[in-house]
């Protein structure tokens, strides 16, 4: 007979694990990845592969030689960071910038805080903002989408819809002059527009989001509250002056809002723990995004919004406690 084991209850464990969650996220990212490869061709694939490989590689390097702790690259978190980083950059980003991006994401965004679970900011976004500030030209030259079925030509670059509007308005043009040059809603939904390689197709991202909701990897609070805030905020502005502000649907479908709402803001490590906190978190991101989009210097502000809200998560966690069982009535009894 074996030696019996003594341990505290419970003696059962669900088949849930960190690795399972991470690979669930990878699966959810697949549709958007396929769309990216379809529209941006091998350049997108190259960026994704480089980013993932070097994210994992740097994590291994740092764990093995700097921290000298246990190796945890098999948990899949570095893979997710790598894909998300790739999703947040243009598909024609030079290879060495991708590698720098991976180093910043893993080295500064994640490992400098102590590794998985301890980082305050979303590593992929830390890296994206770092790249944006360091290489503004490379990070804002968006290749035009170009279905892979056609012959590959030299990449043509152009602005994102958001950038186009911002520039146009800045140059004193009116919206009615600008709108005809934009892709249609259907094209926006499918992803036929300029942008970072993973953010273009709202539909593919939503598919991934629904998969994650079904698998209970994420909860609805953050995406819904964020998207709703963006919708309502831009809707109010649009109703006030439709000649100066774009309509809410445009604001939802373009830029990084969808990607941010479904994949970036819902990052477990850097989002609040309770329902109320998550709702506030999503609201804050939506609000800051719109403030930057409408009045800021950048055409897009999802990354900044998420990073800003990441920084207040510890405060939110303090302020928002779950509804404690038996708390409400205790007050009336006493």
């Amino acid at each position, binding site marked *: 007979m074996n*030696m*019996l*084991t*003594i*341990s*505290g209850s419970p003696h059962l464990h669900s088949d849930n694990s960190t690795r399972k969650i991470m690979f669930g996220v990878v699966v959810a990212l697949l549709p958007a990845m396929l769309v990216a490869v379809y529209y941006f061709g091998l350049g997108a694939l190259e960026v994704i592969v480089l980013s993932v490989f070097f994210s994992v590689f740097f994590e291994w390097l740092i764990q093995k030689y700097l921290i000298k702790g246990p190796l945890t690259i098999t948990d899949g978190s570095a893979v997710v960071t790598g894909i998300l980083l790739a999703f947040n950059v243009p598909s024609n980003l030079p290879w060495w910038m991708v590698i720098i991006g991976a180093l910043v994401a893993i080295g500064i965004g994640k490992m400098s805080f102590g590794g998985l679970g301890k980082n305050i900011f979303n590593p992929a976004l830390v890296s994206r903002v770092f790249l944006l500030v360091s290489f503004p030209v490379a990070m804002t030259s968006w290749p035009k989408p170009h279905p892979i079925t056609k012959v590959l030509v030299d990449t043509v670059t152009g602005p994102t819809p958001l950038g186009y509007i911002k520039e146009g308005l800045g140059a004193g043009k009116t919206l009615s002059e600008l709108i005809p040059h934009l892709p249609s809603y259907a094209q926006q939904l499918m992803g036929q527009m300029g942008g970072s390689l993973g953010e273009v197709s709202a539909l593919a991202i939503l598919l991934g989001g629904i998969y994650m909701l079904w698998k209970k990897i994420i909860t609805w609070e953050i995406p819904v509250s964020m998207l709703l805030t963006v919708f309502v905020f831009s809707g109010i502005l649009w109703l006030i002056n439709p000649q100066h502000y774009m309509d809410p649907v445009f604001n939802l479908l373009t830029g990084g809002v969808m990607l941010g709402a479904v994949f970036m803001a819902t990052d477990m490590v850097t989002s609040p723990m309770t329902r109320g906190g998550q709702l506030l978190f999503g609201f804050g991101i939506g609000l800051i995004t719109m403030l930057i989009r409408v009045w800021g210097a950048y055409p897009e502000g999802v990354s900044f919004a998420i990073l800003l809200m990441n920084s207040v998560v510890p405060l939110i966690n303090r302020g928002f406690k779950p509804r404690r069982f038996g708390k409400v009535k205790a007050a009336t009894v006493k």
Partner: protein
Amino acid sequence: MNHIVIISVVVLGILGLVSAVILYFVASKFKVYEDPKIDEVEAALPSANCGGCGYPGCRAFAENATKSASKNHSLEGFFCPVGGNEVMQKVAGILGLEIEEKDPMIAVVRCNGSYAHSPGKVKFEGVTSCAFAHALYAGEGGCQYGCLGLGDCVAACEFDAIHMNPETGLPVVSDKCTACGACVIACPRDIIELRKKGPKDKRIFVSCVNKEKGAIAIKNCDVACIGCGKCEKVCEFDAITITSFLSYIDFDKCRLCRKCVEVCPTNSIWEVNFKPRKPKVIKEPEKKETAKKPEAAKKPVEKTSVAEKSVNTKKSEK
């Protein structure tokens, strides 16, 4: 250009002046008088902030000691176990008092249920916390009084004086021990005791706290005290008492004659830092106990050799 510099300097200067005046009045209004002796006493203390004296940190000890000295003119109940007599004399000097010397103490682990002596019957899985395991079950070896080996005492020690011996699974106290008593509180099974360090660090104690009947105790651990009473009979100084099948040596009465060590049939009484016995003495127990226990002869020698390396050793015989 010049006037900008002048305006900046003037504005900042006025701002600074106004703040300084406000700060001055606030500081003088809310000034709290504090006995300067408190600072002196605190400076004399080792600032380990271990809480061994019973006060939360050295500052609190200094405050209370100063208060007691000015009110009651005594330092009764105040003792810094870390600094010992030397520091207490200094403190007393600062406060203008005289105090008696106390004997130096050391933490003693009173369990010898190593992996070899009390082999595991079950395997524990869970957090490495004695307090948790104590609430869960008797222990891997089955002794419900013995050391759980999960190191709450090690975690509690502020002085790096207590470590787990991976070979025995028991904690070992080194000479860094200041007798602050943190480990005594941390141990959920009250195994660790503060005992007199003894002359030249020599001391004798019962390395067992099992209060069960001898038959049960010995079943779980072959070096358990079985309460046979031999040591009590042999002791000439009334230092040994047996309550509920457990022998205890009063360190105030013990004269370190080592007779009890010789008669103990389970080798649960330990002597530390004694010189190896002369061959004559070794033969005696061998004759008495015949060849039944050959290790009885070997042990004192080995024990001492280990003890020479560090002060209080959990022996390493396997």
